[in-house]
């Protein structure tokens, strides 16, 4: 160690001890780091307001650049949008009729809508979304004070960003879809083929556990499938690209993230948390007995076919 001034044997020993301590900490906390469970919520709560204030000039600069880009494309987009509007009006009328029919049928069949996209959304300002060499996260400026808890999906104007993994009093951390640790069940809108969207710490996460290779083609729209019980089904994620196998061009990369929406979606219970004792009947995750079986609960009873 080439140190000449301000040096002492205690200093050297202290320096070596702290280097070894850092290395030990790194190895001991490896699993927690992989699970993104290492940052104290207090640090986020301190950081969020300060970072929001510091990032204000950057956000304004980004907004100005985006406005210039939008302005340049405005005329062309206006023409396309007018055509789309005419088509969508007719489509909207059809959808209204279908929605009414669907609601009547769902009421008739007592359909469970647990996995649906919730109607309520919580609008929150994004504080920062840095893409560092090993971490892709998003810090948002609201937490438990607005009812935001771990597991809730977060999306922007463009598409799904990820889900909340830790929630402090006034801030929350979001694990982005492109983070190394992100795994989300998805499906192809065209073919309904299923896969897991796996973050790679690059801009384009890949599709893994693909059961039906033919069901995925470049250009396919990717939606959440809801199979993981963590996300509601049908949230737009991105478009399949053919680069380097099956990867996905994420929708939320289209624009800078300014405001985001958190969905107060209650994820399904983890099967591991459910204590099922065949001798004494089903038990719910909170320890209470299951209310009824399919035979006795009217809401679960299918209508009998007649004639």
């Amino acid at each position, binding site marked *: *160690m*080439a*140190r*000449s*001034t*301000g*040096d*002492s044997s*205690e*200093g*050297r020993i*202290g*320096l070596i001890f*702290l*280097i070894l*301590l*850092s*290395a*030990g*900490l*790194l*190895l001991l*906390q*490896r699993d*927690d*780091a*992989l699970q*993104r469970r*290492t*940052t*104290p919520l207090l*640090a986020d709560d301190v*950081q969020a307001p*300060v*970072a929001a204030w*510091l*990032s204000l000039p*950057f956000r304004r*600069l*980004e907004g100005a*650049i985006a406005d210039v880009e939008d302005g340049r494309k405005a005329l062309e987009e206006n023409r396309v949008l007018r055509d789309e509007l005419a088509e969508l009006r007719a489509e909207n009328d059809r959808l209204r009729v279908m929605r009414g029919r669907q609601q009547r049928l769902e009421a008739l069949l007592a359909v469970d809508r647990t996995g649906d996209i919730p109607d309520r959304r919580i609008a929150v300002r994004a*504080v*920062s*979304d*840095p*893409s*560092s*060499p*090993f*971490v892709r*996260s998003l*810090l948002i400026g609201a937490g438990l004070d607005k009812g935001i808890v771990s597991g809730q999906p977060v999306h922007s104007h463009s598409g799904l960003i990820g889900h909340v993994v830790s929630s402090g009093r006034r801030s929350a*951390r979001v694990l982005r879809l492109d983070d*190394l640790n992100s795994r989300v069940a998805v499906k192809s809108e065209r073919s309904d083929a299923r896969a897991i969207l796996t973050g790679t*710490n*690059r801009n384009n996460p890949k599709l893994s556990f693909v059961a039906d290779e033919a069901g995925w083609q470049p250009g396919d729209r990717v939606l959440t499938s809801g199979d993981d019980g963590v996300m509601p089904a049908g949230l737009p994620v991105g478009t399949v690209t053919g680069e380097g196998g099956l990867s996905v061009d994420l929708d939320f*990369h289209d624009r*800078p*993230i300014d405001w985001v929406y958190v969905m107060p979606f209650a994820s399904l219970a983890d099967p591991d948390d459910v204590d099922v004792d065949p001798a004494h009947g089903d038990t719910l995750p909170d320890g209470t007995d299951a209310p009824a079986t399919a035979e006795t609960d009217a809401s679960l009873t299918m209508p009998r076919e007649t004639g």
Partner: protein
Amino acid sequence: MAYLGIAPAQRNEQLFPAGFALLVTGLVSAVDIRLFGQSWPLTWLPFAVVALWPRNVGALPSALLLFAGGIWVDWTSWGAPGQWPLIFLLTYAIMPSSRSDAMRGLAAGMGRFVGSLFIGVPVLIATGWVVYDTWPDWGALARGLVVAVVILPFAILLRDRLAGRMSGDD
């Protein structure tokens, strides 16, 4: 180096602005700039503070501050605890020391930062490999370095001006 058994005077009061700079840049490191459709992270700003760390100060208080600062940066950047302290401390330990007057000026500061990167970047990559079992996002790494190199001259000029105003020396 001590001359005739007389050690040069340590100026530990310089650790206060250095520690404060580490605290602030740790907060700023969580912010990014989105330009040309890419995220330009400010991840390397705390490292720039370490590269320009005052040298005629006590090694032990410096090491303690760098360790605490590294943990702070790990928290704010959501990284693995121990990664940034290791990078900071190894850079501080390995980088050859120089007298404070030799460190002054834009060219010397930039040279020192670039030299420190030859230690910091490999340590980041190696520790990242150990923890995450993958290579870093090279694009994000490069963009972070570009941002630091662009911002650093202003930081060096500001530091030299403030240092000159506060002490008339460094």
